[in-house]
C-alpha cells in the first residue's frame, strides 16, 4: 500500500476530489495548511505599513491506495491540480506498513 500526500492550491480541491472519484478512489483526508516552496510570499499592507506574508494557504490531501493504483492516483492528482503557474504544489508517495478499518477490523489492502 502507498500513502499519497499532495500539497495543492486550495481552490483545486473539488477538482482533485472529483478526478480521484472517477478512478475509484473515494476516501481521503484533507487539512488546511500553510507553506511555501520556491513560490515566494507576497506583500500586504495594514494601516500604512507593508509586510510580507511568507506562508501561503494550501490544502494537504492524504490518500492511501493499493500498490497497483499508486501511479494512476499520482498522475490523476497532478493532472487535476495543475494550473501551470508557480505554487501548484507537490505530491509525495510513501510506503504504508499496515492499514486497519476500525468498524470491521479488515486489514491490509481490504481496508484501503
Amino acid at each position: 500500500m502507498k500513502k499519497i500526500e499532495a500539497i495543492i492550491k486550495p481552490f483545486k480541491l473539488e477538482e482533485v476530489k472529483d478526478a480521484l472519484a472517477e478512478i475509484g478512489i473515494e476516501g481521503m483526508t484533507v487539512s488546511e495548511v500553510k507553506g511555501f516552496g520556491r513560490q515566494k510570499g507576497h506583500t500586504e499592507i495594514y494601516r500604512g505599513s507593508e509586510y510580507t506574508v511568507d506562508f501561503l494557504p494550501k490544502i494537504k490531501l492524504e490518500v492511501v491506495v493499493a500498490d497497483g493504483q499508486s501511479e494512476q492516483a499520482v498522475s490523476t492528482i497532478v493532472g487535476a491540480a495543475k494550473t501551470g503557474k508557480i505554487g501548484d504544489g507537490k505530491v509525495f508517495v510513501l510506503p504504508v506498513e499496515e492499514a486497519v478499518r476500525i468498524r470491521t477490523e479488515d486489514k491490509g489492502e481490504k481496508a484501503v
Partner: protein
Amino acid sequence: MLLALLCMAPAMSGLAQDGAAEAVAEVVEAVAEAAGEVDENKVAYDEMIAAHGATAYAFDFFALSMVWTIICAALVFLMHLGFATLEAGLTRAKNTVNILFKNVFIISIGLITYAILGFNTHYPGDFNGFFSIGGPIGDLNADGSGTFAYGGVALCMTGFGDFIFQAMFAATAATIVSGAVAERINLKGFMIYATILVGIGYPVAGSWHWGGGFLSAMGTPFKDFAGSSAVHAFGGFAALAAVLVLGPRRGKYIDGKIKPILGHSMPLATIGVLLLWLGWFGFNGGSVLSAEPMAVGLVITTTCLAAAAGALASILTSAVMIKTPDLSMALNGILAGLVGITAGADVVTVWEAVIIGAIAGVIVVPAILFFDKAKIDDPVGAVSVHGVCGVWGTLAVGIFGGSDFSFMSQLIGTLAFGIFAFILSLILAIILKSAGMWRVDAEEEEEGLDIAEHGSHAYPDFVSVAEK
C-alpha cells in the same frame, strides 16, 4: 362624554319605539360611566401638571426634553458597545477577553464613581474655578418637579436626567485609553488607573468649563459644545502619556522597521465605528440639553455631515499617502470627523461642519502614520483620533464659530485639558510602572492576555495554527 354619546347615537336611531325607554336608560348610564372615567384621569393629569407650579405651561416641552435626554443617555451608553467591538476588532484574538473585560469594567466604575463624587465635582456650583471635590449624589428629584426648577429652559431636564446623561460621558475618557494600551497593559494597574482618571481627573477638568470654572470665566469664554477637549483631547492625551510609559507591543518595531500587527476582525471594527456614529446622535444631540427643535436638527446634521466628510477625506488621503483604500483608515476618518465637530456642532454652519470634518479626516491619516514612525504604538489610533482631532475640533470653533469665540480662548482651553490629562496620566502610569503593575511580562504578552490574565479564550472553538 361626547364620545360616549356618539357611540350611543347609532344604537338609539336603530331602535323601535318599544325599546326607546330602555335605550335612553342605557345611554344615561353609559354617559355617567364615561363621564366618571374621564373625570378620574383628568383629575390625575391636572394634578400632575399643577405640581409644576407657575411653569406648568411648559410641561410638554419639559417632558419632551427629558425624554430626549434619556434617549441620548442610552445612545451614549451604546458607544461603550462601539468601543468594545472596535478595540476587539483591531487587536489580536488572543487578547479579546481582556479588551472586553476592560470595557465592561470601565463603564461600570465610571457610572459608580460619577455617582460617588464625579457629578458634584464636575458641577460644584460656586467654587474657586479650578478644583472642588464633591460628594455623592442624593435625591436629585428633591429640587422639586417644577419644569424649570432644575436648570431652566437651557437645561430642560430633571436632576437625574442631567446626572445620567453626564455619567455616560465620563467613562468614555478611560475607554479611549483602553484601546491605546491594548495587548500589553497590566489589568490590575489599568483598573486602578482608570478609576482615578475617570473618577477624579475627568470631572475636575470638566468643571473648568461645564462646571462654570476658569475657562468659562475668561473674557471670551471657552466653548466646547459636547467635549472635543473635555472628553476626546482629555482621553487622547491621557492615552499618549500611558503608551509612552508602557512601550510598544513586542515585535511591533524590529530593526527600525514597523511590523504590522493585524487586527483579528474587521467586521467587529466596522460594527464598532458605526455604533459609535450612532451613539454620537446622543453625544452631540443630547448636549443641546433640551428638545429645542432648531438646535437639535442643526446639531445632528452637522454631526453626521462631519462624520461623512471625515470618512471621505480619510479615504482620499490614504489613497494618496499609502496608495490603498484602507478600511481601518476610513473608519478612523469617520471618528476623526465626529471628534472634530464635537466642540462646535451647534455654532457652525452645515458647510463649515463639512470642512471641519474633512480637515479632521485629512490630518488623522498622517497622524496615525507619524506615531507609528515615532515608535509610539497605538493599536487603534486613539491618540490620533481623539487627541489630535480633539484639539483640531476645539480650535475650529475659534476659526469658524464667529465673533462669540476666539482662537486664543480655544487654544488655552484645549491646552488646559490636554496638558492636565497628559500629566495626570503620566504620574499614574509611572507610579504603577514602578510598582510593577503597568505592563505584563514578555511571556504573558506572547501567550496572550486572555490566558495570562483571565485564564480563558475568547474563541475556544477556534484553534490557532501559529504563533502571532
